[in-house]
């Protein structure tokens, strides 16, 4: 059922051609969320395009907390895939999200920064923002297992 290395092979190809979006399009859930990725300067920015299906509180309205968590986790994984010399699918061990503001029904951007790269685990800090980067809607940190299986 699992063709050997298919996802990894395609990720390596996407990396080789600097095709950030190609990396994302391999993941069905990323398309469901409406994620896109692009280099802005030297930063890999992941964007969650607004869609009505992302709403968690229709009264405000505000984005579902789960969508922000997923965006932050994805931004960290894309950063790891992008920066790593070898392509290894990171496994999330733990993720902690601080919700700072309610997410408005607009596009949300996120970036992950590696705080420590170990032999087995990598620590990443993430933040998500909307119109004003200095006022993040959520921050997070996560630890990933990055060993080749």
């Amino acid at each position, binding site marked *: 059922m*699992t063709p050997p290395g*298919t996802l990894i092979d395609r990720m390596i190809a996407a990396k080789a051609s600097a095709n950030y979006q190609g990396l994302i399009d*391999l993941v069905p*859930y990323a398309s469901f969320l409406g994620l896109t990725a692009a280099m802005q300067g030297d930063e890999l920015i992941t964007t969650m395009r607004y869609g009505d299906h992302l*709403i968690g509180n229709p009264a405000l309205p505000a984005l579902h907390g789960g969508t922000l*968590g997923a965006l932050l986790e994805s931004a960290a994984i894309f950063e790891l895939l992008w920066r790593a010399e070898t392509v290894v699918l990171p*496994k999330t061990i733990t993720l902690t*999200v601080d919700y700072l503001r309610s997410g408005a029904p607009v596009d949300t951007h996120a970036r992950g920064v590696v705080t420590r790269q170990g032999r087995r685990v990598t620590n990443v800090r993430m933040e998500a923002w909307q119109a004003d980067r200095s006022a993040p809607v959520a921050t997070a940190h996560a630890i990933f297992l990055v060993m080749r299986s």
Partner: protein
Amino acid sequence: MPDERDDRDDQDVRKLEMAIAFSRTVPHNQALGIRVLDVIGTEVVFELPYDRKLVGNPDTGTLHGGAITALLDACSGAAVFAALTELVPIATLDLRIDYLKLAEPGKSVIGKASCYKMTRNVAFTRAVAYQDAPDNVIAHSVGTFMLSTKHGKS
């Protein structure tokens, strides 16, 4: 629908009806296909049916961690509502999720959350996500929620 549970009281039945009605108004819960299965006291049980659009690794068909995060966030919030004596707006302060193992493809994930402490301002929750049986845990989470948040800005 046949109801095999007998450990719910009238209040639980009312809370279950409210939780089902509330979840129907949440577009993202609907997009994920989340179903409200049960409310007993301050414990709520949600189901996330398996869906290919939620897959994180297309080679293995395993669900993306983000879908599990959304399930645990949704049922943790519902547990706070179940514990409240009067309905007030709430906002997630933080949520920590430990991923114990990958979800098995093709199977629903059950999210079971409880609000184990409520103060004037803050509610504390814990939750697990499991498949098949409650001891087959795939993720564990703890969360904090702010109570009586401002409802809108306009």
